[in-house]
Protein backbone atom coordinates (compact mmCIF):
# COMPACT_ATOMS: atom_id res chain seq x y z
CA UNK A 1 0.00 0.00 0.00
CA UNK A 2 1.64 3.23 -1.12
CA UNK A 3 1.15 6.62 0.53
CA UNK A 4 -0.73 7.84 -2.53
CA UNK A 5 -3.08 4.84 -2.48
CA UNK A 6 -3.74 5.47 1.20
CA UNK A 7 -4.33 9.17 0.61
CA UNK A 8 -6.80 8.55 -2.21
CA UNK A 9 -8.64 5.98 -0.10
CA UNK A 10 -8.77 8.41 2.83
CA UNK A 11 -10.23 11.11 0.56
CA UNK A 12 -12.88 8.68 -0.65
CA UNK A 13 -13.67 7.78 2.95
CA UNK A 14 -14.02 11.48 3.77
CA UNK A 15 -16.48 11.95 0.92
CA UNK A 16 -18.48 8.97 2.12
CA UNK A 17 -18.63 10.32 5.68
CA UNK A 18 -19.67 13.76 4.50
CA UNK A 19 -22.47 12.28 2.41
CA UNK A 20 -23.86 10.68 5.59
CA UNK A 21 -24.35 14.00 7.32
CA UNK A 22 -28.01 14.72 8.07
CA UNK A 23 -29.67 17.70 6.42
CA UNK A 24 -29.82 20.88 8.46
CA UNK A 25 -33.44 21.18 9.55
CA UNK A 26 -33.29 24.49 11.35
CA UNK A 27 -31.25 27.61 10.60
CA UNK A 28 -29.12 28.82 13.51
CA UNK A 29 -28.49 32.52 14.00
CA UNK A 30 -25.13 32.93 15.73
CA UNK A 31 -25.12 35.20 18.77
CA UNK A 32 -23.79 38.79 18.35
CA UNK A 33 -20.80 37.89 20.54
CA UNK A 34 -19.64 35.05 18.33
CA UNK A 35 -20.28 37.07 15.17
CA UNK A 36 -18.10 39.84 16.54
CA UNK A 37 -15.33 37.43 17.49
CA UNK A 38 -15.47 35.71 14.11
CA UNK A 39 -15.33 39.07 12.35
CA UNK A 40 -12.20 39.85 14.30
CA UNK A 41 -10.66 36.46 13.56
CA UNK A 42 -11.30 36.92 9.86
CA UNK A 43 -9.72 40.37 10.01
CA UNK A 44 -6.74 39.01 11.88
CA UNK A 45 -6.28 36.26 9.33
CA UNK A 46 -6.57 38.72 6.51
CA UNK A 47 -3.96 41.04 7.95
CA UNK A 48 -1.61 39.03 10.13
CA UNK A 49 0.37 40.63 12.88
CA UNK A 50 1.98 44.11 13.05
CA UNK A 51 5.20 42.26 13.20
CA UNK A 52 6.93 43.63 10.15
CA UNK A 53 5.59 47.11 10.62
CA UNK A 54 6.69 47.28 14.23
CA UNK A 55 10.00 45.61 13.43
CA UNK A 56 10.61 48.03 10.60
CA UNK A 57 9.51 50.90 12.78
CA UNK A 58 12.05 49.88 15.40
CA UNK A 59 14.69 49.69 12.72
CA UNK A 60 13.77 53.19 11.57
CA UNK A 61 13.97 54.47 15.12
CA UNK A 62 17.22 52.71 15.84
CA UNK A 63 18.79 54.01 12.66
CA UNK A 64 17.57 57.53 13.27
CA UNK A 65 18.85 57.49 16.83
CA UNK A 66 22.21 55.99 15.90
CA UNK A 67 22.84 58.17 12.85
CA UNK A 68 21.51 61.43 14.06
CA UNK A 69 21.26 61.06 17.80
CA UNK A 70 17.90 62.72 17.52
CA UNK A 71 14.42 61.40 18.18
CA UNK A 72 12.20 61.13 15.12
CA UNK A 73 9.68 63.93 15.47
CA UNK A 74 6.17 64.20 14.12
CA UNK A 75 6.85 67.10 11.79
CA UNK A 76 5.54 67.07 8.20
CA UNK A 77 8.89 66.35 6.60
CA UNK A 78 9.69 63.44 8.89
CA UNK A 79 6.17 62.09 8.52
CA UNK A 80 6.42 62.19 4.71
CA UNK A 81 9.79 60.43 4.86
CA UNK A 82 8.52 57.60 7.05
CA UNK A 83 5.34 57.17 5.01
CA UNK A 84 7.43 56.83 1.86
CA UNK A 85 9.78 54.40 3.57
CA UNK A 86 6.90 52.15 4.66
CA UNK A 87 5.21 52.38 1.27
CA UNK A 88 8.36 51.22 -0.47
CA UNK A 89 8.69 48.25 1.83
CA UNK A 90 5.10 47.15 2.23
CA UNK A 91 3.27 48.24 -0.92
CA UNK A 92 3.26 44.70 -2.26
CA UNK A 93 1.62 43.31 0.88
CA UNK A 94 -1.51 45.38 1.28
CA UNK A 95 -3.18 48.72 1.23
CA UNK A 96 -2.18 51.39 3.69
CA UNK A 97 -3.28 54.85 4.48
CA UNK A 98 -2.26 57.13 7.28
CA UNK A 99 -5.06 57.96 9.56
CA UNK A 100 -6.91 57.79 12.78
CA UNK A 101 -10.33 58.75 14.07
CA UNK A 102 -11.58 61.58 16.17
CA UNK A 103 -12.07 60.65 19.77
CA UNK A 104 -12.07 62.36 23.10
CA UNK A 105 -10.05 59.60 24.65
CA UNK A 106 -6.69 60.66 25.99
CA UNK A 107 -4.37 57.79 25.15
CA UNK A 108 -1.33 59.59 26.53
CA UNK A 109 -2.17 58.05 29.91
CA UNK A 110 -0.88 54.73 28.63
CA UNK A 111 2.68 53.73 29.42
CA UNK A 112 4.75 50.67 30.18
CA UNK A 113 6.73 52.61 32.79
CA UNK A 114 6.43 50.89 36.14
CA UNK A 115 5.18 47.72 34.47
CA UNK A 116 8.06 46.55 32.30
CA UNK A 117 11.02 44.90 34.00
CA UNK A 118 13.66 47.28 35.32
CA UNK A 119 16.26 45.77 33.01
CA UNK A 120 14.51 47.69 30.20
CA UNK A 121 15.01 51.42 29.76
CA UNK A 122 12.71 53.59 27.71
CA UNK A 123 14.52 54.92 24.70
CA UNK A 124 11.71 56.64 22.85
CA UNK A 125 8.12 57.74 23.22
CA UNK A 126 6.00 59.38 20.57
CA UNK A 127 2.37 60.26 20.97
CA UNK A 128 -0.23 62.15 18.99
CA UNK A 129 -4.00 62.45 19.29
CA UNK A 130 -4.61 59.04 17.83
CA UNK A 131 -1.49 56.98 18.36
CA UNK A 132 1.19 56.32 20.90
CA UNK A 133 4.41 54.34 20.65
CA UNK A 134 6.93 53.60 23.37
CA UNK A 135 10.19 51.77 22.77
CA UNK A 136 12.25 50.11 25.48
CA UNK A 137 15.58 48.32 25.28
CA UNK A 138 17.63 46.24 27.65
CA UNK A 139 21.43 46.22 27.87
CA UNK A 140 21.58 43.48 25.23
CA UNK A 141 19.65 45.60 22.79
CA UNK A 142 16.46 43.55 22.99
CA UNK A 143 13.53 45.83 22.23
CA UNK A 144 10.03 46.01 23.62
CA UNK A 145 7.54 48.12 21.68
CA UNK A 146 4.23 49.26 23.14
CA UNK A 147 1.64 50.84 20.87
CA UNK A 148 -1.80 52.31 21.41
CA UNK A 149 -4.02 53.33 18.56
CA UNK A 150 -7.56 54.58 18.36
CA UNK A 151 -9.77 52.45 16.20
CA UNK A 152 -13.36 51.61 15.45
CA UNK A 153 -15.10 48.30 14.75
CA UNK A 154 -15.21 49.09 11.04
CA UNK A 155 -11.52 49.69 10.64
CA UNK A 156 -9.08 46.91 10.03
CA UNK A 157 -5.52 47.12 11.09
CA UNK A 158 -3.05 46.70 8.31
CA UNK A 159 -0.92 43.90 9.53
CA UNK A 160 1.57 42.65 7.04
CA UNK A 161 1.38 38.92 6.56
CA UNK A 162 4.33 36.92 7.77
CA UNK A 163 4.34 33.18 7.16
CA UNK A 164 6.37 32.41 10.26
CA UNK A 165 3.82 33.91 12.68
CA UNK A 166 1.39 31.78 14.68
CA UNK A 167 -1.74 33.29 16.21
CA UNK A 168 -3.63 32.17 19.33
CA UNK A 169 -6.62 33.58 21.20
CA UNK A 170 -5.80 34.43 24.82
CA UNK A 171 -7.39 36.52 27.57
CA UNK A 172 -6.35 39.88 29.03
CA UNK A 173 -8.39 40.54 32.16
CA UNK A 174 -11.25 38.60 30.62
CA UNK A 175 -11.06 40.44 27.30
CA UNK A 176 -10.29 38.48 24.19
CA UNK A 177 -6.77 39.14 22.99
CA UNK A 178 -4.53 37.67 20.35
CA UNK A 179 -1.08 36.34 20.97
CA UNK A 180 1.29 36.13 18.02
CA UNK A 181 4.36 33.98 18.26
CA UNK A 182 7.24 33.49 15.96
CA UNK A 183 8.82 30.12 15.20
CA UNK A 184 12.19 31.56 16.13
CA UNK A 185 13.23 32.16 19.74
CA UNK A 186 15.31 35.12 18.61
CA UNK A 187 12.33 36.91 17.16
CA UNK A 188 9.73 38.89 19.06
CA UNK A 189 6.28 37.74 20.00
CA UNK A 190 3.32 40.11 20.30
CA UNK A 191 -0.02 40.51 22.01
CA UNK A 192 -2.89 42.76 20.86
CA UNK A 193 -6.15 43.57 22.55
CA UNK A 194 -8.83 46.22 22.53
CA UNK A 195 -9.48 48.62 25.39
CA UNK A 196 -12.92 49.66 26.60
CA UNK A 197 -12.97 52.77 24.42
CA UNK A 198 -12.10 51.02 21.20
CA UNK A 199 -8.40 51.72 21.38
CA UNK A 200 -6.14 48.98 20.10
CA UNK A 201 -3.15 48.14 22.24
CA UNK A 202 -0.18 45.96 21.48
CA UNK A 203 3.06 44.90 23.09
CA UNK A 204 5.83 43.31 21.09
CA UNK A 205 8.88 41.83 22.81
CA UNK A 206 11.24 38.88 22.97
CA UNK A 207 9.21 37.40 25.80
CA UNK A 208 7.02 34.35 26.29
CA UNK A 209 3.26 34.30 26.24
CA UNK A 210 2.79 34.43 30.02
CA UNK A 211 5.06 37.46 30.38
CA UNK A 212 3.29 39.32 27.61
CA UNK A 213 -0.14 38.54 29.04
CA UNK A 214 0.99 39.66 32.48
CA UNK A 215 2.25 42.98 31.12
CA UNK A 216 -0.88 43.49 29.05
CA UNK A 217 -3.08 42.86 32.08
CA UNK A 218 -1.06 45.33 34.14
CA UNK A 219 -1.41 47.98 31.43
CA UNK A 220 -5.10 47.26 31.12
CA UNK A 221 -5.67 47.58 34.88
CA UNK A 222 -3.50 50.66 35.29
CA UNK A 223 -5.33 52.89 32.74
Amino acid at each position, binding site marked *: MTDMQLKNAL*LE*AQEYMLNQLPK*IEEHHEFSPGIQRRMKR*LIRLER*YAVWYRIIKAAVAVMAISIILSGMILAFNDEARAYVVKWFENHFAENGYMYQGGIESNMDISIYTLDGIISQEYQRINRQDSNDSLVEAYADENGRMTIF*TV*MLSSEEEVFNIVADESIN*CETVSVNGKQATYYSSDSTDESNAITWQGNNGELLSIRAIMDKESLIKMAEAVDKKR
Partner: protein
Amino acid sequence: MLIFLATIEDETEKTKIETIYELYAERMFHLSFSILHNNEDAEDAVQTAMVRACKHVKKLQEPYDKSTMWYVLETTKNISIDIYRKKKMMREMERPFDESNDGYGSVSQISSDNKLVKKIMELSVNERDVLMLKYVYGFNYSEISENLGMSAVAARKAAQRAREKLERLLKEE
Protein backbone atom coordinates in the same frame (compact mmCIF):
# COMPACT_ATOMS: atom_id res chain seq x y z
CA MET B 1 6.49 56.65 14.79
CA LEU B 2 3.45 56.29 12.58
CA ILE B 3 0.92 53.47 12.61
CA PHE B 4 -1.16 52.80 9.53
CA LEU B 5 -4.75 51.69 9.14
CA ALA B 6 -6.40 50.01 6.15
CA THR B 7 -9.91 48.98 5.32
CA ILE B 8 -11.19 46.11 3.25
CA GLU B 9 -12.56 47.85 0.18
CA ASP B 10 -12.86 45.02 -2.31
CA GLU B 11 -15.53 42.42 -1.47
CA THR B 12 -14.02 39.94 -3.96
CA GLU B 13 -10.91 39.63 -1.83
CA LYS B 14 -12.50 37.32 0.73
CA THR B 15 -10.00 35.24 2.58
CA LYS B 16 -9.98 31.48 2.69
CA ILE B 17 -11.03 31.51 6.35
CA GLU B 18 -13.87 33.88 5.66
CA THR B 19 -15.21 31.62 2.92
CA ILE B 20 -14.76 28.51 5.07
CA TYR B 21 -16.75 30.19 7.83
CA GLU B 22 -19.54 31.23 5.46
CA LEU B 23 -19.75 27.76 3.96
CA TYR B 24 -19.51 25.55 7.02
CA ALA B 25 -20.21 27.48 10.24
CA GLU B 26 -23.80 26.40 10.46
CA ARG B 27 -22.97 22.77 9.72
CA MET B 28 -20.23 22.95 12.35
CA PHE B 29 -22.71 24.35 14.86
CA HIS B 30 -25.25 21.60 14.24
CA LEU B 31 -22.60 18.90 14.54
CA SER B 32 -21.39 20.40 17.81
CA PHE B 33 -24.92 20.86 19.12
CA SER B 34 -25.66 17.19 18.46
CA ILE B 35 -22.91 16.43 21.00
CA LEU B 36 -23.27 19.24 23.50
CA HIS B 37 -26.97 20.14 23.29
CA ASN B 38 -26.16 23.68 24.35
CA ASN B 39 -26.11 26.75 22.05
CA GLU B 40 -23.37 28.60 23.87
CA ASP B 41 -21.04 25.62 24.13
CA ALA B 42 -21.64 24.69 20.51
CA GLU B 43 -20.85 28.25 19.37
CA ASP B 44 -17.68 28.22 21.47
CA ALA B 45 -16.68 24.94 19.84
CA VAL B 46 -17.24 26.47 16.39
CA GLN B 47 -15.14 29.47 17.26
CA THR B 48 -12.31 27.32 18.64
CA ALA B 49 -12.45 25.15 15.53
CA MET B 50 -12.19 28.24 13.32
CA VAL B 51 -9.20 29.50 15.30
CA ARG B 52 -7.53 26.13 14.74
CA ALA B 53 -8.42 26.19 11.05
CA CYS B 54 -6.94 29.67 10.86
CA LYS B 55 -3.71 28.37 12.30
CA HIS B 56 -3.45 25.58 9.73
CA VAL B 57 -5.15 27.36 6.85
CA LYS B 58 -2.14 26.97 4.57
CA LYS B 59 -2.44 23.20 4.78
CA LEU B 60 -6.08 23.21 3.71
CA GLN B 61 -7.25 22.98 0.13
CA GLU B 62 -9.67 25.51 -1.34
CA PRO B 63 -12.76 26.24 0.81
CA TYR B 64 -15.16 24.35 -1.49
CA ASP B 65 -12.99 21.23 -1.44
CA LYS B 66 -14.56 18.37 0.53
CA SER B 67 -11.34 17.72 2.38
CA THR B 68 -11.57 21.24 3.81
CA MET B 69 -15.13 20.61 4.90
CA TRP B 70 -14.10 17.36 6.53
CA TYR B 71 -11.26 19.05 8.40
CA VAL B 72 -13.37 21.81 9.93
CA LEU B 73 -16.17 19.42 10.85
CA GLU B 74 -13.83 16.84 12.35
CA THR B 75 -12.04 19.57 14.29
CA THR B 76 -15.37 20.85 15.57
CA LYS B 77 -16.36 17.34 16.57
CA ASN B 78 -13.12 16.72 18.47
CA ILE B 79 -13.34 20.03 20.28
CA SER B 80 -16.97 19.35 21.16
CA ILE B 81 -16.08 15.95 22.57
CA ASP B 82 -13.35 17.58 24.69
CA ILE B 83 -15.89 20.07 26.05
CA TYR B 84 -18.33 17.23 26.64
CA ARG B 85 -15.76 15.25 28.62
CA LYS B 86 -14.82 18.24 30.77
CA LYS B 87 -18.46 18.97 31.53
CA LYS B 88 -19.17 15.33 32.17
CA MET B 89 -16.38 15.33 34.77
CA MET B 90 -17.94 18.37 36.36
CA ARG B 91 -21.33 16.66 36.12
CA GLU B 92 -22.67 19.46 33.98
CA MET B 93 -23.85 17.30 31.10
CA GLU B 94 -27.47 16.34 31.27
CA ARG B 95 -27.63 14.40 28.04
CA PRO B 96 -25.15 11.59 27.41
CA PHE B 97 -23.24 11.31 24.16
CA ASP B 98 -21.97 8.07 22.70
CA GLU B 99 -18.29 8.82 22.15
CA SER B 100 -17.90 5.90 19.80
CA ASN B 101 -20.29 7.68 17.44
CA ASP B 102 -18.15 9.62 15.01
CA GLY B 103 -20.94 12.09 14.37
CA TYR B 104 -21.56 11.25 10.73
CA GLY B 105 -24.42 8.84 11.28
CA SER B 106 -24.08 5.19 10.39
CA VAL B 107 -20.88 4.63 8.43
CA SER B 108 -20.74 0.88 8.77
CA GLN B 109 -22.58 0.14 5.54
CA ILE B 110 -20.18 1.75 3.09
CA SER B 111 -20.89 0.72 -0.44
CA SER B 112 -17.51 1.50 -1.93
CA ASP B 113 -15.86 -1.16 -4.09
CA ASN B 114 -12.51 -0.08 -2.76
CA LYS B 115 -11.38 -2.59 -0.10
CA LEU B 116 -8.99 -0.08 1.41
CA VAL B 117 -11.77 2.47 1.88
CA LYS B 118 -13.90 -0.15 3.65
CA LYS B 119 -11.03 -1.05 5.93
CA ILE B 120 -10.42 2.62 6.72
CA MET B 121 -14.01 2.83 7.91
CA GLU B 122 -13.33 -0.12 10.24
CA LEU B 123 -10.59 1.79 12.05
CA SER B 124 -11.36 3.60 15.26
CA VAL B 125 -12.19 7.32 15.00
CA ASN B 126 -8.82 8.25 16.47
CA GLU B 127 -6.86 5.98 14.11
CA ARG B 128 -8.74 7.35 11.14
CA ASP B 129 -8.21 10.96 12.23
CA VAL B 130 -4.47 10.47 12.63
CA LEU B 131 -4.16 8.98 9.15
CA MET B 132 -6.31 11.73 7.65
CA LEU B 133 -4.26 14.52 9.18
CA LYS B 134 -0.98 12.91 8.19
CA TYR B 135 -1.66 11.66 4.69
CA VAL B 136 -4.36 14.01 3.42
CA TYR B 137 -3.27 17.31 4.97
CA GLY B 138 0.43 16.66 5.51
CA PHE B 139 0.39 17.57 9.20
CA ASN B 140 3.50 16.71 11.14
CA TYR B 141 3.19 14.82 14.41
CA SER B 142 3.41 17.97 16.48
CA GLU B 143 0.46 19.43 14.58
CA ILE B 144 -1.46 16.15 14.80
CA SER B 145 -0.90 16.07 18.55
CA GLU B 146 -2.26 19.59 18.87
CA ASN B 147 -5.31 18.79 16.80
CA LEU B 148 -6.15 15.55 18.57
CA GLY B 149 -5.04 16.32 22.12
CA MET B 150 -2.30 13.72 22.34
CA SER B 151 1.48 13.87 22.54
CA ALA B 152 3.53 13.90 19.34
CA VAL B 153 4.98 10.52 20.32
CA ALA B 154 1.49 9.08 20.77
CA ALA B 155 0.48 10.54 17.41
CA ARG B 156 3.44 8.89 15.69
CA LYS B 157 2.65 5.53 17.31
CA ALA B 158 -1.05 5.85 16.46
CA ALA B 159 -0.25 6.53 12.81
CA GLN B 160 2.10 3.58 12.65
CA ARG B 161 -0.37 1.23 14.35
CA ALA B 162 -3.25 2.40 12.17
CA ARG B 163 -1.29 1.81 9.02
CA GLU B 164 -0.15 -1.62 10.18
CA LYS B 165 -3.72 -2.45 11.12
CA LEU B 166 -4.92 -1.50 7.64
CA GLU B 167 -2.29 -3.65 5.98
CA ARG B 168 -3.22 -6.54 8.25
CA LEU B 169 -6.96 -6.12 7.55
CA LEU B 170 -6.28 -6.04 3.82
CA LYS B 171 -4.27 -9.25 4.01
CA GLU B 172 -7.02 -11.00 5.96
CA GLU B 173 -9.45 -10.51 3.04
